[in-house]
């Protein structure tokens, strides 16, 4: 049984008109100790998906379909009371902006104590001992338990957030763009650290980011999302080496490299679609460089492509469609 099993998840935002479907039929599984990367542009539904998995959505967003099974228990139908037994102890969330996610008027130590007492019974000494332990784990001097967030640098704040998520040594840590506010050097150091901690403590990670290259060396599985749907998923190396979906190819070609020859790049023309008015056919079709006439009318399912899956008609396993125009 996988640690986390998300099936056909659908999240809608109620709007004045038609509801906007931010997450549309997303399925993913995370095994014990696995690192799953979720990449996509802003507005593709990756953060909403993450919030839905952790049951952190608030109106007008609502899960309208699908299941989220954590160790076989369906989180979608679970009562808040039961959820609170799992939260932080079994799975925890690292938010995007440590600057805003930490309380600016409380010390780091007080916030750690808060999390510990909210989810368990501990003596003062136990709280201090555990707080010191997790701070050491992420390489911050325990003296900073008495510091306020503004006294830490961006990288340290982000690492303090990760330390906080590890207070109960959970099985799953969900991370929403934890590195986006950091510089490249700090970003790289944080990624290496997450990988080290993961190897040591054995937790699984779901890592959401807009920067595909960031997870290239760290994730086992990769999900590429576009306009609320998974357009490609598979082992990370496969997706990078043989991207099957035109959108994944476009994303990869949008990164200038610091090595090799300087080549002109094109990026992806256009911009992501309005989720409250989804196109009739493939959602990427208006921006797709290799679209066929039928793409405008046919909604492609996820087709298997080797060990990966791709939501593109060009990957359909029919002979007369197999030829990919280049």
């Amino acid at each position, binding site marked *: 049984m996988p640690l986390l099993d998300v099936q056909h998840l659908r999240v809608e935002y109620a709007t004045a008109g038609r509801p906007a479907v931010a997450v549309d039929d997303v399925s993913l599984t995370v095994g014990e100790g696995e690192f799953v990367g979720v990449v996509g542009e802003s507005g593709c539904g990756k953060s909403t998906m993450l919030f839905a998995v952790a049951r952190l959505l608030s109106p007008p967003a609502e899960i309208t379909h699908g299941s989220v099974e954590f160790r076989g228990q369906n989180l979608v139908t679970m009562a808040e009371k039961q959820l609170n037994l799992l939260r932080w102890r079994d799975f925890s969330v690292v938010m995007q902006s440590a600057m805003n996610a930490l309380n600016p008027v409380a010390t780091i130590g007080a916030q750690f104590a808060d999390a510990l007492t909210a989810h368990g019974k501990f003596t003062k000494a136990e709280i201090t001992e555990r707080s010191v332990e997790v701070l050491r784990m992420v390489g911050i001097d325990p003296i900073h338990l008495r510091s306020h967030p503004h006294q830490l640098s961006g990288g340290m704040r982000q690492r303090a957030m990760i330390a906080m998520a590890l207070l109960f040594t959970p099985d799953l840590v969900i991370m929403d763009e934890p590195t986006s506010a950091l510089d490249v*050097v700090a970003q790289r150091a944080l990624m290496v650290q997450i990988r080290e901690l993961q190897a040591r403590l054995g937790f699984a990670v779901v890592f959401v980011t807009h920067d595909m290259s960031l997870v290239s060396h760290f994730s086992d599985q990769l999900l590429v999302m576009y306009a609320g749907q998974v357009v490609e998923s598979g082992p990370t190396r496969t997706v990078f080496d043989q991207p099957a979906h035109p959108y994944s190819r476009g*994303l990869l070609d*949008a990164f200038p490299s610091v090595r090799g020859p*300087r080549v*002109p790049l094109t990026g992806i023309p256009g911009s992501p679609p309005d989720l409250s008015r989804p196109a009739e056919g493939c959602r990427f079709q208006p921006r797709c460089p290799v679209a066929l006439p039928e793409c405008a009318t046919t909604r492609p399912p996820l087709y298997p492509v080797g060990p990966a899956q791709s939501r593109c008609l060009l990957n359909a396993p029919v002979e007369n469609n197999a030829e990919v125009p280049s």
Partner: protein
Amino acid sequence: MTELLRTRGLTRHFKVGGTFSGRRLHAVDDVDLTIEEREIIALVGESGSGKSTIARLLARVYEPTAGEILYRGRSLAQLRRRKDLLAYRGDVPMVFQDPFSSLNPAYRVKHGIMRGLILHRPDLDAAGRQAEAERVVEAVGLHPAAEILERYPYELSGGQRQRIGFAQALAYRPKLIIADEPVSMLDVSIRIGLLNLMATLREDAGVSILYITHDIASARYLSDRVAVMYGGHIVEAGPTEDVLGEPKHPYTQLLLSAVPDPRAPLDPDVALDRGEPPRVVDPAPGCRFRARCPLAIDRCDVETPLLRDLAPRHQAACHVAT
């Protein structure tokens, strides 16, 4: 090549702490930078390295603490008359990082462009301004221009808004556009479009661009020359391919090794560096990178390294680099 702008010993300090603390943050120290006509120069560094302060000094948002800025051979400190200042601001406009807060949401797109035109191009009449506004909007790749001008910012995507930022700058017939992290808030798939736009503007409008970024890969993609900043100093400068192909300064080397590159295998030896860029408050002499530097020697503690030529047009400020 003709020199357009040059800074000489450009320095900017800020008071920090209480009124009487007397402590000063050295945001920019002793920076010599030249920008030539039709040149794209990238200023690369981590946050807090002083790169945005340089942008604001050049845009005259801040006055320098010491040193001077020469525009076409004339010191900016001499620009006293409103007419001269206005002319300089028209020649050297700025494009901001955040396209969501740099356009006024209460006005149509044309408002910002028109205001600039009224201020900087008084020779144009209303019809001329409209034609000019349409020209610049088309020049940044937005069609149909007349319709875009009537829209409100909320009707545009992030990439389109940032293009409007460039259109506003372009309306002044600029000589140098200061672009402070113009793509860092945009999605990956549309960043390249804006980088390509900047390259096109140089070709078509003949402007120079100071491209300020923390993304060394995009600096390589776009720029002719690159200057790397650390702790308020320029630590390395030279032609882009030389600096990134053969980085001399250990900080440039660190920065390059940290760039994620999906096409290359992971090098497990690099980026164990957990250091942070310094907040340079009342510094003593010495190299500001020494605490993080793998090559540091005793001399680095006592003597601030100056930029010196290590290859043709390629300088680094390091005692050890060769």
